[in-house]
C-alpha cells in the first residue's frame, strides 16, 4: 500500500481534533519557552476552546502528543492528567537546544449525499478510519461526493539554552510551518518570517490567523490575518509581548487519488518576549 495510507495507519491513534474544528480552537500552552536551568522542565496545557488560552470548553487528549528532542529522540510526556477542561503534562528537557511538542494526523475523509438527500460521511463522527474500508464504505459516485486528503498538525516549541534547528525540519507530510525566524527567538516590534509547505512544497495562499492570548480581557479578537505568498512565506510583526496562537488553513485540488481535494490545517503557539 502506498505511503499515504501508511500515514493514516500510523496516525489513527492520534487525538481526534474535532471534525467540527470551526468554532473550537485547539491549543497547546507551554508554561515557558525559553529556559536556562540545567534541570529544565516545562508544563503544558492542552485544550479546546473559543477563547484563546482560556480553558473553558474541552480538554485535548494527550495520547497522540509527540515530543522531539534536539537530537531527534522522542521523549515521553510525563505526569499527564486530563481534567474537565484541559489536559496538563510535563516535558523534561535533558538536552540543550530546541524541542518540538506536536500532534499530527492525516488521512482520507469523504462526504456525500444519498439519493434521498441524506448526508453521509466517512469515517463517521468520532470514528477511526480504517483505510481498507474506503472502497467498501464510500460510493464511487454519489451526489456532492467529495473525497479529501487531509492533514492536521498542532505544535509548539521550547528551548533550553541556545536555539537549535534540527526539530524545525519539514516532515514533508501535510501542511507544515517552517520557521525562517526561530520560534523561540520572537520579540515584540520585530518581524518574524515563516514558510508554509504542503507535502514538502511551498503552500501558496495559506490563510493564516494569529490571535494574541488573554482574549477574555479585551472586547475584540485582535486577530492578525495574513496569506502566504508565492513562496509560501508570511511575515508577522508582533504588536506586543505575550503568547500567540497561529492557525492556518490550506486547500487545493492537487490530491492523490482517490481524493479530489487536498486540505491542511496547522496551529501553533508562539511566545513573544518584550523587546
Amino acid at each position: 500500500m502506498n505511503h499515504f495510507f501508511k500515514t493514516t495507519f500510523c496516525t489513527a491513534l492520534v487525538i481526534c481534533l474535532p471534525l467540527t474544528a470551526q468554532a473550537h480552537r485547539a491549543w497547546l500552552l507551554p508554561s515557558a519557552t525559553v529556559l536556562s536551568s540545567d534541570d529544565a522542565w516545562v508544563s503544558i496545557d492542552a485544550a479546546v476552546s473559543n477563547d484563546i488560552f482560556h480553558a473553558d470548553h474541552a480538554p485535548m487528549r494527550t495520547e497522540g502528543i509527540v515530543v522531539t528532542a534536539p537530537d531527534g529522540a522522542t521523549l515521553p510526556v510525563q505526569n499527564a492528567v486530563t481534567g474537565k477542561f484541559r489536559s496538563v503534562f510535563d516535558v523534561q528537557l535533558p538536552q540543550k537546544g530546541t524541542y518540538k511538542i506536536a500532534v499530527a494526523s492525516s488521512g482520507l475523509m469523504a462526504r456525500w449525499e444519498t439519493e434521498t438527500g441524506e448526508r453521509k460521511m466517512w469515517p463517521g463522527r468520532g470514528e477511526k478510519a480504517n483505510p481498507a474500508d474506503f472502497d467498501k464504505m464510500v460510493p464511487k459516485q454519489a451526489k456532492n461526493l467529495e473525497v479529501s486528503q487531509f492533514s492536521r498538525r498542532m505544535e509548539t516549541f521550547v528551548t533550553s539554552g541556545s536555539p537549535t534547528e534540527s526539530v524545525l525540519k519539514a516532515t514533508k507530510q501535510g501542511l507544515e510551518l517552517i520557521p525562517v525566524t526561530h520560534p523561540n527567538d520572537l520579540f515584540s516590534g520585530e518581524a518574524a518570517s515563516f514558510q508554509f509547505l504542503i507535502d514538502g512544497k511551498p503552500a501558496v495562499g495559506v490563510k493564516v490567523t494569529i490571535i494574541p492570548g488573554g482574549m477574555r480581557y479585551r472586547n475584540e479578537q485582535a486577530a492578525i490575518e495574513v496569506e502566504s505568498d508565492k513562496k509560501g512565506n508570511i511575515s508577522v510583526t508582533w504588536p506586543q509581548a505575550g503568547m500567540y496562537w497561529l492557525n492556518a488553513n490550506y486547500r487545493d485540488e492537487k490530491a492523490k487519488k482517490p481524493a479530489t481535494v487536498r486540505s491542511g490545517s496547522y496551529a501553533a503557539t508562539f511566545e513573544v518576549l518584550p523587546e
Partner: protein
Amino acid sequence: MRSRLLVSSLFTAMALIPVTPAIADELTVSVELPVLEVAEYHEPYVALWIENEKGESTNLAVWYQLEERGQKSDKGEEWLKDMRQWWRRIGRDTDMPVDGVSGATRAPGKHTVTFTEGKAPLGKLKNGNYVLIVEAAREVGGREVVKVPFTWPAKAAANQSAKGSKELGEVKLSLTP
C-alpha cells in the same frame, strides 16, 4: 377586564374630542446588527435593558441560543456571561429563560422591538432619567456596548440614537408619549 376596556374606550372617546391621544407610552428600540465579513460568523448574543439613575435595571430583551438541534435546550446559557455588563447587572441574578424577554438570536439587519409602559417587561416607569443599554457578544468575535440616554416620560415624540463601531450598528430609541 371589562372595566379596563371601558376605561380605554372612554379615553379614546375623550381623545377624539380635544388634545392628546390616549395611546399608551411606548419605547421602541431599533437595533442594527452589522453584516460582518469574517471567516466564521455566528449570530451575536444581544441584551437590551434600561437603567435608572440609581443603577437599577429593567431587563427588556435577551437574544441567545434557545435551542440545540431543533430542541429546546439550556445549552446556550453557557455563553450568557459573555455579555459581561448584562451578566453583572441582570443575568447572574436572573433565571433564564424569561417569558417575553428571551428570544432567539437574530440575523444581521435592523430589528425593531416595542415595549409598552405598564406591560411586562417594561412595567411602570417612574419619571426620571434613564439609559438604554444594548450589549452584543459574538462567538469567536467581539463584544460591544452602546448606550442611549433618555428622559421619561417623553414630552413629545422623540428619537435618539447612538452607533456602535464593530459589533453593533445604529441603536435607535423612539419614545411615544
